[in-house]
């Protein structure tokens, strides 16, 4: 098979974690196939990123640098990936299933008239044939997908699933600029600014630890309990659809079939009964803790550890215990 191409997303000259995961998976697949890993970087300031990418195992690095590439413009980025794909002629193109990756991958796949598997959780290649596992029905079922011969296979990788290589064999790391013929028409739709959500430090879809609140929060003010536990653990705040629909917290935080699908190391569900809708969004979490007054709540069937009790009593105690643990 031809080589592996990874598009690595950077924002403000920082590679984002899901992209480190994508580069690592690219390295693993390239090693198995005995082919080269090429990493594509796009932006206005890429200084220092090539050495970081080399350390993760890139053999070749394509740098698309242009003053107009400070903020995301879908068609310009599409042209960059298209040009890189036509240059490197990869058999496999990977990127993170992030807000940018999802948007970009779909446009590139349509441009290249090739197959794209979204939000993948495992990739295997045998005798040159790629098969990919990906959750469907928000994780209620797992599909294995295969690809028509001919064009490169494209995949976006679900964050927090593919481990970042801890001791990668450094790649050859030959960095070279890639000339892309940008014109004004490639900047028709373009980001003009980014507004960060107030107080939010981590996105639920990317966090290692997620603490979620549901109907039992009874109002927006009680999400301070969820936040205190999330803060103690260094995690992100999530919510059920009931809590979001009631207007207690922004939709950004919703976990479930019509919200975000998350796979953190630890998921703590507080006052969430566990409707199918919600379970679909978090069932692939590695360890699940449920706190609920109702011993019959369906969430307990999925929990590794459960506490039957009042969350307003349990959470402050849990925060104390965690602080003690972290101090000790």
């Amino acid at each position: 098979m031809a080589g592996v191409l990874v598009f690595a997303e950077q924002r403000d000259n920082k590679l984002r974690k899901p992209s480190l995961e994508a580069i690592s998976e690219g390295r693993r697949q390239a090693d198995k196939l005995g082919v080269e890993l090429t990493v594509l970087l796009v932006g206005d300031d890429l200084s220092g990123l090539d050495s970081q990418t080399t350390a993760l195992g890139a053999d070749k690095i394509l740098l698309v640098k242009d003053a107009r590439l400070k903020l995301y413009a879908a068609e310009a980025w599409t042209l960059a990936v298209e040009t890189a794909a036509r240059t490197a002629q990869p058999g496999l193109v990977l990127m993170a299933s992030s807000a940018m990756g999802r948007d970009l991958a779909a446009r590139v796949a349509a441009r290249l008239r090739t197959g794209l598997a979204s939000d993948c959780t495992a990739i295997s290649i045998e005798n040159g044939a790629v098969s990919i596992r990906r959750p469907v029905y928000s994780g209620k079922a797992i599909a294995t997908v295969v690809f028509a011969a001919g064009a490169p296979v494209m995949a976006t990788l679900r964050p927090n699933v593919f481990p970042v290589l801890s001791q990668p064999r450094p790649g050859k790391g030959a960095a070279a600029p890639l000339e892309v013929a940008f014109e004004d028409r490639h900047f028709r739709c373009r980001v003009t600014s980014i507004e960060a959500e107030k107080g939010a430090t981590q996105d639920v879809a990317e966090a290692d630890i997620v603490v979620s609140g549901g109907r039992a929060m009874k109002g927006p003010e009680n999400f301070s309990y969820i936040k205190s536990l999330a803060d103690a653990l260094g995690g992100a705040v999530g919510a059920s659809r009931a809590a979001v629909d009631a207007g207690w917290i922004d939709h950004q935080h919703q976990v479930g079939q019509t919200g975000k699908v998350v796979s953190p190391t630890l998921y703590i569900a507080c006052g969430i009964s566990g409707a199918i809708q919600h379970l679909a969004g978090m069932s692939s979490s590695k360890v699940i803790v449920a706190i609920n007054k109702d011993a019959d709540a369906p969430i307990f069937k999925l929990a590794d550890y459960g506490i039957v009790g009042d969350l307003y009593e349990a959470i402050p105690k849990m925060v104390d215990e965690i602080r003690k643990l972290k101090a000790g």
Partner: protein
Amino acid sequence: MKIVVAVKQVPDTETKVTIRPDGRSVDESSITWIVNPYDEFAVEEALKIKEARGEGEVVVVTVGPARAATALRTCLAMGADRGVHLSDPAFENSDSLGLATILAAAIKPIGADLVFAGQYAVGTDNRQVGVMLAELLEMPHVSVVTKLELTAGGLSAHREIEGGHEIVESPLPCVITAQKGLNEPRYASLKGIMAAKKKPIEEKDAAALGLDKGQVGEAGAKVKISRLEMPPPKQPGRIFKDDVEMAVREVVRLLHEEAKVI
């Protein structure tokens, strides 16, 4: 202003998934079909724009078997003006690019100023068709939109990203994929439901769209499902009752010592 909304009929989000004996498809016999929830935001936004401008046409388009006409009818009851139902046995098992190809063939001749779709269709969870449609229509796009304003030169949109949102500007025509938060979709009124019965739904097959059957459906699919399986069953967990203080202490200890996650 001409506005096209691409919609999809999908299984209700509370559906229990059962896999058929073929091991690669879902048993559809007990499924309740609904309009994809994200498409409702798309339809609502289209209707709001038409109402605010006091002129225009909202056309809803879908690809699907005979049952999908119900989804179009629901959108017409919300207030869309007419429907286009793209249906052909050759469309079955289309992948995302196939669906976008069918939709593009139908939408291109309409000459839309704005094209809406949901940010993804629940079930297949691909998040691809709306953006692919933009590429095939050679239009710019903004995906996962939570706020939209038409401006003198085009539009300005909020696009949801990790930990915040981007402000995106684009000229028209443009493809927008709708995210929850964009608006509150209206319920169809009784009057709307009655009126919808008289609104036209045009049916088009591959030949009417000028599509080569090898481009779409199973034959044209670049991505195919080879296997579908249920996730592995979960081992029963340890549930602590009665003394909350003890329970909390024990769970924190287990998270630290046994699960090693904190």
